[in-house]
């Protein structure tokens, strides 16, 4: 018995090491004083300082956050509407197809999403003269298209767990349809909307493939910047930058999961 437990623990430890050792080493080496990435030269915060002084990094970071904020917000609104719509329409022919179609962007290779959106923007530019240039706006639109699918899926799951008679009860007590929506439906799906927003935010902050396709001159997001820098060789300030992003993203994901779990859906609990 004891031996088996030790064996299992070893396997688990190995698995986690496999997952997290690369990340931890990046974080550790971000505090490396040495200019050489692979050589430990003592503890230092110099690369974080260098980061703060790097104009290109700072402006890319600002752009990334702006895009993430805008796309997460719009994706949450649109994804919520899609989730509500799919839930409310009830049973009809093609419902399964439509539901499946909303989840397709989740498994679609990013490179294909990127190419197709690039084509769309080029064609749109030719037909209606917009967008004339590609940049922050097109990246935001691209991020909205794939992250709203995540929001829709989360909101729909929440609605599926909601006691249908809650809305009936509110209407029975004198709430008009719009009031019922605001008083009962929105509070019920709010946790799903918040975790959806956080997820959309981190997805947008992460993305490099799609952004590379639909970006234009002058609009470089943080992941794009890192990618281009790494092509010229890994410098220790990248480690520092990576550490900051890892912390931000994991905070977002943890918050999303926490909010999703903390508040149970449904009627009387």
């Amino acid at each position, binding site marked *: 018995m004891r031996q088996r437990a030790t064996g299992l623990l070893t396997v688990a430890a190995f698995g986690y090491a496999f997952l997290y050792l690369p990340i931890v080493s990046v974080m550790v080496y971000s505090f490396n004083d040495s200019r050489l990435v692979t050589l430990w030269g003592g503890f230092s915060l110099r690369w974080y300082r260098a980061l703060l002084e790097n104009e290109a990094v700072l402006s890319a970071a600002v752009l990334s956050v702006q895009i993430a904020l805008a796309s997460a917000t719009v994706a949450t609104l649109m994804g919520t509407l899609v989730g509500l719509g799919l839930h409310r329409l009830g049973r009809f022919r093609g419902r399964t197809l439509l539901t499946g179609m909303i989840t397709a962007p989740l498994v679609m290779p990013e490179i294909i999403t990127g190419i197709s959106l690039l084509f769309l923007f080029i064609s749109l530019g030719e037909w209606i003269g917009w967008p004339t240039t590609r940049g922050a706006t097109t990246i935001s639109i691209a991020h909205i298209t794939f992250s709203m699918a995540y929001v829709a899926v989360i909101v729909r799951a929440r609605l599926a767990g909601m*006691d249908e*008679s*809650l809305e*009936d*009860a*509110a*209407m*029975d*007590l*004198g*709430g*008009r349809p719009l*009031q019922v929506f605001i*008083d*009962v439906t929105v*509070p*019920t799906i709010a946790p799903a909307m918040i975790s959806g927003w956080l997820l959309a935010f981190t997805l947008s902050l992460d993305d490099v493939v799609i952004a590379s396709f639909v970006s234009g001159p002058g609009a470089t997001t943080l992941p794009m910047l890192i990618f281009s820098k790494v092509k010229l060789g890994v410098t220790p300030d990248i480690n520092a930058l990576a550490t900051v992003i890892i912390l931000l993203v994991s905070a977002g994901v943890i918050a999303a999961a926490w909010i999703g779990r903390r508040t*149970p859906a*449904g*009627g*009387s*609990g």
Partner: protein
Amino acid sequence: MAIEAWNDPNARPMVELRGLSKRFGDVTAVDGVDLKVFAGELFAILGASGSGKTTLLRMLAGFESPSAGQLLIDGVDMTRVPPYERPVNMMFQSYALFPHMSVAQNVAYGLKKEGVGKAEIADRVARILDQVKMGHLSGRKPAALSGGERQRVALARALVKRPKLLLLDEPLAALDRKLREHTQFELMNLQDELGITFMVVTHDQEEAMTLSSRIAVMNHGRFEQIGTPEAVYEYPGNRFVADFVGSINQLEATVNRVDADRVLLECASAGCEMEVVSDAAPAPGSDCWVAVRPEKILISKAPPETGRVAVKGVVHDLGYFGNLSIYRVELPTGHMMKVSAQNRQRSATKTLEWDDEVYLSWEVGSAVLLTD
């Protein structure tokens, strides 16, 4: 109720259904029902799942729009009025308490939507919560309440609006047995105190029998019988009602002779002649059924006194339930009869055994003649 309004032709109904129907595609859930429910009644709609009772309830609340017919509440046509404009409130089976609101906020919700002033809301909420003995928990969230407490809050939330009609969807279904009995009497007291007309939908005949002033037994979207609990139990109108409400023995028979209210039958199930009291005056030669409740039957080893309808049989099975014993007795024809006997004396429980030959007998007036 002091007077039985349903027997008074001049009484004005609180709820009136006129040929009310609801179809979903080719399925007719409610099939042209007529009904009058009077102020202060505690009216039960009893039916199995799929009988249309829930659809009927949802039409009364306004969640479903009738396909045909009319629905009047207190004389006003409500057929097309949305739920939020009806003087009707509902206690849902799941209670449907808003999980993000406290008990007090839940109860205040309906008054807020009505535009009642803040001070009055606070006053009315406090009063109704006291009435259902939930005043001390007004700050709690529904998730922190027990099933019985949630039900009280749901009831308070519906009653605080002072509706003309309160709908209750399976009000006791979610409660355990001890709590059910208690709640049942509380509901009746509350209804009596407030004088609001209650309509209860239930599949549980015991719940319907004990709670209500009248019962409508529903089947396939229609009412099979409407009457007081006693009438429905003692004088079921047809085989469905007889079987659905309580337990009953049904014996197949053919009419031999009709003599005023006395009907003489040839009973195929029992293999003998039999007499029944009935006003139905069935045609001689027609098929019918004799229905006898298990508790109306006397089981004895000795032949019963004359004047009673009697058949002979053999004890096939017996079950001891403490306060009563249930016997299954096989007649010579092979027909099984269910008999229940009160265990009045301790010694009485052991007097009958398996395979004992017994007489089953009942008073002529205790059996019911059913023609369909």
